[in-house]
């Protein structure tokens, strides 16, 4: 199991690095999908099969398809690659890199000072997940639901067909 | 929605219907006599070529697949020196048959003329000419009209009167 964990972790790491460095947006998204799949494998072997499945269904299966969909619609030409390479200049990535470095240092510090007590590994099924969702985290779930509802209403409002205004001489044509 | 279910059911019931396919190379489908297939040149009842090389078929052909050259025999009767149809161009529209004043060129109910070599689809006069009269039995152009070119004397056709002798007073 440890071997699978390390393989998945390495795949996730390499894929994420590739996501950042690719110039072609669709290729970057493909690597992001691979990264998400690797993370879901990690979830699965660390005892959270439900979360692993949801990760694949929701993130890899739905949200990233929409990402790819949107990028397909944008019809990025050959010029976008050049513009992308402008973004890879130091002043663009130096701040996020420093922030990530701080996080990495923290992680390494935690790992070094880890006292070695093994975390108890047990499988958490769908029942437990839903019980905690609609039990302890009720408020958060409801708030998220409200946010999503607002999103749906907003999308409906934007997507609604506009009523066309005609000059009064043309209104009879509209009715016929 | 219900109409879709009804369609499904009706299509399902087709299992019990007889097949309409005709297994072609073993069984042949019935082709009506006026089917527009391979083009032939026919002969009249006297076994002469009907074609008078008037070029109307070549003019009518929308794809220009007919080419011929007119010539005359010793009696002055016109006939094609060569008559060539390029069947790799022919669209079997039947306009040549419509245009022909002598019923010489006719389309027949035959379509099995596949070839491996495209050049073999160019039919010469000897390939086109048949021994029979095709669809129009007993018809002879020169018996109906035309000048005397050795087939009949002047005014000797089926619906012709003998020529009037202008040098006599007798009725």
């Amino acid at each position, binding site marked *: 199991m440890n071997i699978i964990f390390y393989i998945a972790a390495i795949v996730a790491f390499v894929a994420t690095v590739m996501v950042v460095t690719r110039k072609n947006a669709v290729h970057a998204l493909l690597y992001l999908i691979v990264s998400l799949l690797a993370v879901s494998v990690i979830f699965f072997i660390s005892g959270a099969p439900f979360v692993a499945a949801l990760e694949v269904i929701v993130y890899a299966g739905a949200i990233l398809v929409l990402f790819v969909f949107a990028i*397909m619609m944008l019809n990025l030409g050959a010029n976008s690659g050049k513009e992308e390479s402008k973004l890879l200049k130091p002043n663009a990535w130096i701040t996020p890199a420093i922030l990530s470095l701080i996080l990495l240092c923290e992680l390494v510090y935690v790992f070094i000072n880890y006292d070695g007590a093994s975390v108890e590994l047990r499988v958490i099924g769908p029942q437990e997940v839903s019980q905690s969702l609609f039990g302890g985290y009720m408020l958060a779930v409801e708030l998220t639901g409200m946010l999503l509802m607002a999103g749906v209403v907003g999308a409906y409002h934007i997507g609604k067909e506009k009523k066309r205004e005609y000059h009064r001489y043309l209104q009879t044509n509209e009715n016929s | 929605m219900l109409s879709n279910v009804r369609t499904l059911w009706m299509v399902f019931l087709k299992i019990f219907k007889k097949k309409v396919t005709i297994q072609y190379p073993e069984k042949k489908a019935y082709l009506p006599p006026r089917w527009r297939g391979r083009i032939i040149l026919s002969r009249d009842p006297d076994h002469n070529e009907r074609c008078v090389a008037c070029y109307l078929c070549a003019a009518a052909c929308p794809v220009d697949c007919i080419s011929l050259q007119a010539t005359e025999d010793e009696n002055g009767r016109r006939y094609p020196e060569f008559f060539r149809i390029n069947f790799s161009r022919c669209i079997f529209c039947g306009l040549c048959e419509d245009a022909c004043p002598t019923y010489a060129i006719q389309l027949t109910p035959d379509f099995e003329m596949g070839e491996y070599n495209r050049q073999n689809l160019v039919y010469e006069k000897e390939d086109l000419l048949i021994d029979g009269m095709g669809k129009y039995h007993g018809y002879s152009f020169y018996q109906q009209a035309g000048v005397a070119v050795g087939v009949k004397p002047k005014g000797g056709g089926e619906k012709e009167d003998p020529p009037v002798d202008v040098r006599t007073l007798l009725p």
Partner: protein
Amino acid sequence: MNEILVQILIIVGVLLGTVTIAAGLIYVERKMLAVWQQRSGPNRVGPFGIFQVLADMVKIFFKEDWIPPFVDKKVFIIAPTIIMLSILMSFSIVPFAPGIVIADLNIGLLFFLAMSSLGAYTIVLAGWASNNKYSLLGGMRGAAQMISYEVFMGLSLMGVVIQVGSFNMTDIVNAQKGLWFVVPQFVGFVIFLIAGVAETHRLPFDLPEAESELIAGFHSEYSGMKFGMFFVGEYLGITLVSCMITILFFGGWLGPSFLPPIVWFLIKMFAFILFFVLLRAALARPRYDQLMSFGWKLLLPLALLNVLITGAVVLSNA
């Protein structure tokens, strides 16, 4: 050691079995379409034309596998493999008979949904990588259609899950010993059937390929074995959805004991495969906006109502 051997045998058997069935479906579909259209179908290669499958496979293997110069080469090659992979992975959770299952996951149904949602990529990526207007249109249609119908597919299954109280496929089959779920979950069954057709983008919902308007849509540029993968992937998808319908709504391997369980499973599965072929023979393709509004305005409320009522009934019985 013996157990591992049995496991490997099952894996190989399921893999070979499903791929063989999918290949055989090429013949079955052509023949049944012919029967329903009063034709003869393939009847030249071997007795009743049964070697048509072999002839088709030989043809597809020896065709030139051409990659057009204007495509995005990597994505172009990856796209057709995704559908084969995702659907073959889904077969690993299908219990064909008691004990004959590769991985009896406790989240089996979710695994199936996850894999079928990954199947959407094959169309999107193939359409995008082909770098061709028609393919792109097909890919866009495919993405929208598959994401939409995944929603109803998942929701229609929730009724079954609520009644069983488990995502495990074996549990779901065992819970149907008294009564098949097609009776209490008829609405769910109908929605799953429609969503299944849309997920495998079969006729009448083959809008991503739509020969008459998009000249084969997302796979216009594909040839040879890569096209063959789309082809076999589609048949594998039909087989998978038929298996899922059998398991979820028609009691899987359950049946009178004069036949072995696996035979019952296969009989039910083939009945649904034939139904899919009948759908293709009978129904016309809807317009694209009709497909979407049918999904979101009719199937979604129905599926939600189904979940609501099932949940209420189960709660009141508990």
